[in-house]
């Protein structure tokens, strides 16, 4: 049994609902889709019990009605798990993973600025990467967002 199959078996024995949502993409690549309700349990199990101890980054996706989030976790043997969850755009609330990876703070701030996600449990701090005077409700990586030539004009005048 390959290391990827072992990981799959281990996960299914712990979380039976993952039975149809684990995809062994190729050697060293596993993608998993999980609903928001179960997300944190699976994430914590991977990070703590299965030694996927390196969070490479978090990718945000605009999927029309929903926002997708992929957590890229690296473990032993070069295996990468792309753990995906999604939320409705109308209520884009996810939970912070900074309790497991303090370094995730910057990746979660990206999701807040660029996709308009709301991250529960994100410690206070500066926004990233947009400017402090960026207008509210403008999230550039949403598909319906178009560059607005007026953004930043006011800031330019002050300088």
């Amino acid at each position, binding site marked *: 049994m390959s290391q990827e199959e072992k990981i799959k078996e281990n996960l299914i024995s712990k979380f039976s609902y993952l039975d149809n949502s684990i995809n062994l993409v190729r050697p060293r690549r596993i*993608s998993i889709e999980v609903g928001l309700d179960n997300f944190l349990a699976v994430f914590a199990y991977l990070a703590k019990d299965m030694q996927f101890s390196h969070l490479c980054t978090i990718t945000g996706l605009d999927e029309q009605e929903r926002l997708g989030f992929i957590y890229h976790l690296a473990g032993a043997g070069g295996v990468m798990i792309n753990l995906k969850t999604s939320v409705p755009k109308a209520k884009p609330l996810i939970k912070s993973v900074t309790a497991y990876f*303090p370094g995730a703070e910057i990746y979660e701030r990206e999701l807040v600025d660029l996709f308009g996600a709301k991250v529960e449990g994100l410690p206070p701090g500066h926004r990233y990467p947009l400017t402090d005077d960026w207008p509210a409700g403008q999230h550039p990586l949403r598909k319906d967002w178009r560059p607005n030539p007026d953004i930043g004009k006011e800031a330019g005048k002050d300088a």
Partner: protein
Amino acid sequence: MHNSEEFRIPIGPQHPALKEPEGFSVALKGEKILGVDIRLGYNHRGIEKAAEERSYIQDIYLIERVCGICSHSHSTCFVQTVEEIAGLTVPARALYIRTIIAELERVHSHLLWLGVAGHEIGFDTLLMYSWRDREVVMDILALVTGNRVNYGMNTIGGVRRDISLQQAQEILKAMDILEERTKYYIEVATNETTIIKRLSGVGVLSREDVLLLDAVGPTARASGVKRDVRVDDPYAAYGELTFNVITDDHCDVYGRTVVRVKELLESYKIIRQALKNLPAGPIAIRAPRKIPAGEALGRYEAPRGEDVHYVKSNGTEKPERVKIRAPTLANVQAVKHMLRDRFLADMPIVVAAIDPCFSCTDRMVRLAEQGSDKSKIISWPSLHAYSIEWHKKQGIDFSELNKKLAARLAR
């Protein structure tokens, strides 16, 4: 934490000490750093959004410009991710050529870093030496690719230029020169007490901190974490080549120096092997203009650490989503930790030690007295001069070592 004796020093925001200029706000009590607050994003260029508006071919050149120094890193990471989605089998010769350029890039980047590090601690002869030697590899890169940076070697399905027999001979000659020079740097770094005293115990990051803060590259390896994508998750031709992953247990700037100079020797080893075993055959296969719907995650060991690209395609000639995480973003979190309870005089070398991209632009430091309107602006060169003088008073003076190395150069 705030009291009348505390100073808060903003460095930046227009502070191009890193690839993306950022604002450091340093809380200081006397000469000691109490905490550092980092504001990022001042140079956000919207490349991920721009990539969605362009074709895959146009994106190669856009993404190559994410970074000037690791340009080949980003373009390789992107093309191999797209190739995975499209199910392309890239010719072996192209994979070897990508690997050779990747290691040449690492050599130029590490030699550049060695010079910057020397400069930050007042060891300018080392800067002159390593940047002179760096020209050897820059000439080779220009010979093979036509450019010193932004090589334009990659395309989807392979590479755009071959390496001729004659070019291979030139590369091998350069490797011999650089190997001899690098051995000398290793001798200097591991034997000169002034360097050892100046860099030891500075910018400490424990093994546990690396794992917690997700640091990557030489910064992680210098804290004993054997994390290297070339071995963990092999790409290009790395799976067929033998080399060592250099680690060190000093967990400080000294360790990061040792790791980088020793990695240079491994790079020469990889380049020689790749040239020796360079497979015959085509350098590229034809790739479709439209990439079938799918997604893939690519990883790449850039000179500064793990580079991560995620690409999602939708069956058209433009990607649905491109996500890039450059190594400096992963390491900048660790800087905060390294500076806590250290002296202001160590800030230049600690920031430099994660190897952010230094631009030539002047950097300003604004000293503001907490609770009053009084503020004082000092330039980065003044902070640099202050750092060197401060350490001279502690008995660490590079004047003699500078003279000693210069005398060797004169011989």
